[in-house]
């Protein structure tokens, strides 16, 4: 379980996230919010790239930045960049080595991940030759090299064509079936509606709602409810 307790993040005078408390155990949890709502900041704090100004983030009872927690998580950043002269497979091996995973067994495992995300055929091409969609897929695959329990995906479907989006969603469903917990950052309402059991609605760094998607919608469309909830809190400046 991932537990956020009174998390606050400020960059000098600008407050990005405030009073953020949440416990997540749903198989797929979606963070929903407009651009700049604080979704990426929360995800970066969760995976240890940023330190909260105050508050704590715990994964299975351990601080999220502790090595024991980092071994349990996989992270795909928004718009991933890579070492351009590495091949896709070399990058996977590099990521695997950072977890101490190597050898022929790992190479087969990494090959399987590239197959899963649909870029196995390009595994020996340099990443600089990859399209944006292929980079997204590689970004997704590298997040799985340690067979993580928790997967944090920041806008994972950006830059993918409709077929790619469908394929990636299928991969996420497979991962859910395997017992993985997925945290999905997105501003695309349809993705949350389709994929997530629970969601958190963020607006200007505040958590406006956390709970089941069905309860949130209460018979209305997600878009309608999102606009209602965000609109009602629009005057709350940080």
């Amino acid at each position, binding site marked *: 379980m991932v537990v956020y307790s009174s998390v606050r993040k400020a*960059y000098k005078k600008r407050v990005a996230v405030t009073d953020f408390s949440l416990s997540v155990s749903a198989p797929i949890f979606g963070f929903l919010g407009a651009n700049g709502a604080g979704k990426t900041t929360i995800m*970066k704090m969760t*995976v*240890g*790239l*940023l330190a909260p100004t105050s508050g704590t983030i715990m994964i299975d009872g351990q601080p999220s930045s502790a*090595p024991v927690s*980092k*071994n349990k*998580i996989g*992270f795909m*950043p928004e*718009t*991933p*960049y*890579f*070492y351009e*002269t*590495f091949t896709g497979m*070399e990058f996977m091996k*590099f*990521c695997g*080595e*950072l*977890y*101490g995973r190597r050898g022929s067994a790992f190479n087969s495992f990494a090959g399987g991940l590239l197959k899963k995300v649909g870029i196995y055929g390009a595994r020996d091409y340099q990443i600089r030759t990859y399209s944006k969609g292929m980079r997204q897929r590689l970004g997704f695959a*590298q997040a799985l090299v*340690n067979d993580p329990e928790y997967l944090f995906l920041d806008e994972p479907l950006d830059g993918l064509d409709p077929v790619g989006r469908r394929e990636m969603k299928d991969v996420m469903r497979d991962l859910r079936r395997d017992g993985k917990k997925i945290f999905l950052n997105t501003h695309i309402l349809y993705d949350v509606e389709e994929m997530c059991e629970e969601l958190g609605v963020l607006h200007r760094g505040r958590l406006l709602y956390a709970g089941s998607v069905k309860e949130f919608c209460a018979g209305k469309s997600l878009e309608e409810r999102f606009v209602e909830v965000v609109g009602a809190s629009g005057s709350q400046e940080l």
Partner: protein
Amino acid sequence: MHTVLVIAKNTFKLEIRNKILYAILGFGVLYAVVMLFLSDLVLQELPMVKSFGLLGIYFFNVIVALFLGTTSFHKDIERKIVYFILAKPVSRAQFVIGKFTGLCLVLLSSSVMLGAVYCGVIAYAHGGFDAMGLLAIAMQFLEMALFLAFAIFVTTFSSSLLSIVYTSAVFFAGHIVSSILVDAKAIGIGGFKLLAVEAMYYVLPNLEKFNIRDFAVHPVATPFTFFFMALCYAAAYIALLLFAAIWIFEKKEL
């Protein structure tokens, strides 16, 4: 330690592929041709050939160190590649040390390759093995490692362009600071001015400690303690610079 080595290995692989290898090989061929030409031209002037040879390696490696030190680490942050790395069980200290070690390996490869060309040309044109020349190249490598650590340190808090400016300035200052102190004492300045010069002397790296090219070119005995002290100085200074770089990087918002 394992993580540091993984980052070092992949940094080395990355930089070698980023055309640095071609630059080293290209320079190596040009260097060999010029050295052979110079050897033919001034057959009796072995010191001139040696001096040119050692300086050639030195300046080439200064450019490589400046380029690598101010771009490699910075690119990883600017292009957010660190997101992949630091979200894994990798500390920022391991990342900084791994990058430094990988870049040092590139410089070591360059020094070894060009050193082999140097020794080959000296042996071919004049006979004999130039052990002092090799030692001078090893000392130059120590200086470059320190220079590289300084560049990485500066890159943790400034842009790539400013890092080039600061690192170049320190390179020049590091070579003249000991002479300035000697001159300042010789002309008898005192008070605050002398304090300022002394502060510069102790804070800035004294890169002349690694310059034994004159000893290598002219047959002058160099005491072992000179090498030992230079090695200790480089190790201490590099450790301090990396410690400072890690301290700043730990506080950096990514």
